[in-house]
């Protein structure tokens, strides 16, 4: 329990402290330090959960499903902090951001981490909602950090779209509460997920159906499901790169996590009706559409960060599809995919940040021959893309292997769509990435001092996961699979 409290307190304290630290240098270091501490406590938490299945109390509940996401969040938070320290100083040095902006940046960075962790660990749907909305509020200022017209526009769209989406999610939550009150003895527990999950079968299916629609559209907006995804590429491309890394790496995961938690409730309540798999079917539909559409979007990109944000949409779609598919194999694959995707994608965004610095632009057409200019960056980008495109021996392949085989076992004809989608996406990525890394660099493209450590660590981990999944992690994932899909894989 104390581990949990610490894990939540640290970012809070950090946010408050950083709001007052004026020195950019110290802020960077402090941010880093807090991230380190958060990770340690998160690991401690993970160990505790491994000890005794579940940790619960005062609206919080940590089980196998969210604990690995907590650790992942803390970890990505740390590596991104490592990257962001020199990067943001570079930005600040170029006077793109005022020192005040830097204060906001660091404070909001921690606030964001806080909201993420709260959203993951809370057991209360209301608090979950509050946290996710808080995440929006925390990041929206960062998106407009550079104050360019594009940045402001992106921030506004992000704000309005996610605000509306989240509002709808709240309506769904209210409906759930409404349904809960009819069955629960103590109505105040009506938002406690664990209680609801216990009584899921009793919840009025009609209300839950409507509620789930609102929740899906609401949180789905944050997941970036087509056609509510439009904020995502804007926010990713205009915000500072560390922000893009954590958005793609964490926020989307958390939103999807919320969707899956709620799906579990709805499945419970719909089990008896004539449409038991409604939630799953909806998820599959949204997932497939997002996956295919995003894959096509990749072909028309001119901005490198936008491109990778679309690839994020594509992968979120894939996971959503897998969760909708249900069944232990697909669920395990989806959980694994969450993990490897956020590792790989944040690594890619870090690399992209360096690449953009090298070329002095985010426009794909003007980034050329990175391998020649700075082999480390060039190869990292290439390998990152190879990993995200689902080539072994990287972990993404393992999860996609599971997804595809699960698909062909339950919905064989959809696997054709997946096949086409993956091919299109692969083509879309490489047609843009190859010219950027290969070939002869243009004049005046200079190497920059880049800290590739986070990238190395992330890709290394992804590689490791592709070759062998450590027993502890496998145990977590499998217990989570048990929670979600109802049956274990191992």
């Amino acid at each position, binding site marked *: 329990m104390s581990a949990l409290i610490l894990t939540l307190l640290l970012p809070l304290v950090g946010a408050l402290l950083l709001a007052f630290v004026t020195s950019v240098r110290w802020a960077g270091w402090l941010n880093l330090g807090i991230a380190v501490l958060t990770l340690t406590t998160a690991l401690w938490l993970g160990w505790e959960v491994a000890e005794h299945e579940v940790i619960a109390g005062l*609206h919080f509940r940590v089980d196998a499903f969210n604990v690995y996401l907590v650790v992942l969040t803390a970890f990505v938070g740390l590596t991104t902090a490592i990257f962001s320290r020199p990067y943001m100083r570079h930005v600040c040095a170029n006077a793109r951001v005022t020192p005040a902006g830097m204060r906001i940046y660091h404070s909001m960075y921690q606030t964001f981490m806080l909201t993420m962790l709260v959203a993951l660990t809370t057991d*209360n749907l*209301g*608090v979950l*909602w*509050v946290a996710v*909305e*808080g995440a929006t*509020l925390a990041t*929206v*200022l960062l998106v*407009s950090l550079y*104050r*360019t*017209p*594009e940045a*402001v*526009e*992106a*921030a*506004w*769209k992000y*704000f*309005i779209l996610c*605000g*509306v989406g989240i*509002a*709808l999610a*709240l*309506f769904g939550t*209210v*409906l759930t*509460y*409404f349904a809960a*009150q*009819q069955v629960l003895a103590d*109505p*105040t527990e*009506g*938002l406690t997920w664990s209680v609801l999950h216990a009584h899921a079968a009793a919840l*009025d299916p*009609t*209300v839950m159906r*409507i509620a789930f629609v609102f929740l899906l559209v609401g949180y789905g907006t944050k997941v970036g499901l087509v056609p509510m995804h439009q904020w995502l*590429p*804007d926010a990713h*491309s*205009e915000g500072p790169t560390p922000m893009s890394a954590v958005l793609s790496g964490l926020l989307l995961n958390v939103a999807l996590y919320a969707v899956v938690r709620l799906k579990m409730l709805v499945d419970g309540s719909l089990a008896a009706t004539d449409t038991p798999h409604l939630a799953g079917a909806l998820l599959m539909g949204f997932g497939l559409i997002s996956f295919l559409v995003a894959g096509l*979007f990749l072909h*028309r*990109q*001119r901005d490198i960060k936008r491109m990778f944000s679309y690839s994020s949409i594509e992968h979120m779609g894939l996971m959503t599809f897998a969760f909708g598919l249900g069944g232990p194999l697909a669920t395990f694959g989806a959980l694994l995919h969450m993990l490897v995707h956020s590792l790989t994608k944040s690594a890619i965004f870090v690399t992209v940040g360096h690449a953009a610095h090298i070329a002095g632009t985010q426009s794909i*057409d003007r980034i050329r021959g990175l391998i020649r200019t700075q082999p480390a960056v060039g190869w990292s980008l290439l390998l990152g893309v190879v990993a995200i495109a689902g080539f072994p021996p990287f972990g993404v392949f393992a999860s996609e292997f599971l997804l595809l085989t699960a698909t062909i076992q339950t919905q064989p004809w959809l696997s054709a769509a997946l096949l086409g989608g993956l091919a299109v996406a692969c083509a879309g990525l490489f047609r843009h990435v190859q010219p950027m890394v290969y070939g002869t660099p243009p004049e005046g493209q200079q190497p920059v001092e880049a800290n590739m450590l986070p990238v190395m660590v992330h890709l290394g981990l992804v590689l490791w996961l592709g070759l062998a999944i450590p027993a502890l992690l496998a145990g977590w994932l499998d217990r989570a699979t048990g929670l979600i899909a109802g049956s274990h894989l191992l």
Partner: protein
Amino acid sequence: MSLAQLPLLEQFLLLQAALVLFLSFGLLSQTRLLAAIHAFAWQGALIAAVTLTVAIAGHSHHLYFSALLTLVLKAMLIPWMLHRLVRRLALERHTETLSHPALVSMVAVALVIFSYWVVVPIVAEELTFTRNIVAVSLAVVLIGLLMLVARQQAVAQVLGFMSMENGLFLAAVSATAGMPLVVELGVAFDVLVAMVLFGVFFFQIRDSIDSLDVDRLNRLTETEEETA
């Protein structure tokens, strides 16, 4: 069961709900910003009233508090902030020309019917009353969303957003006799922060495109052809 058989309080509730709905129609078609803000304030006040009524009916104490909260936040604080913003943005005289006002209100009516149709299947006899309120609040939410779609003026969009929130409050209070306090506070806090941020963004937007017409925020798009 018909209205007549309901106790007076519930009839009163339905009346208030109806008024809320009416106000969001007003919001939707109101072209003058200040007037719209006032309408919004009234809506907030009505929500507060509803909360109070439910509190009296259900003797639930924390609802008194949330009624107060709603009143302060929705009927006073936020309208006041909007007022200030509008004045600082020198938009008092601003009136917006809706493209197809008649069409929009027709759509709104359709939305009301639709939301009722959606909620009808909730069949639990003793719930009919709350069910209808849910229908109303759903309508309010949808109309708020419609307002976001229809209005191209940033402040008006914010109003639409806020009236969505109102719809949510209405649902929360009337259908479920109030959310847990934690959540209420959290939501209120979020709304407040959101409002502040909106304020910030008004100025940022005006600095970047020296207007608050969101249709002119169209730099970020995939549709235009490559200029290579």
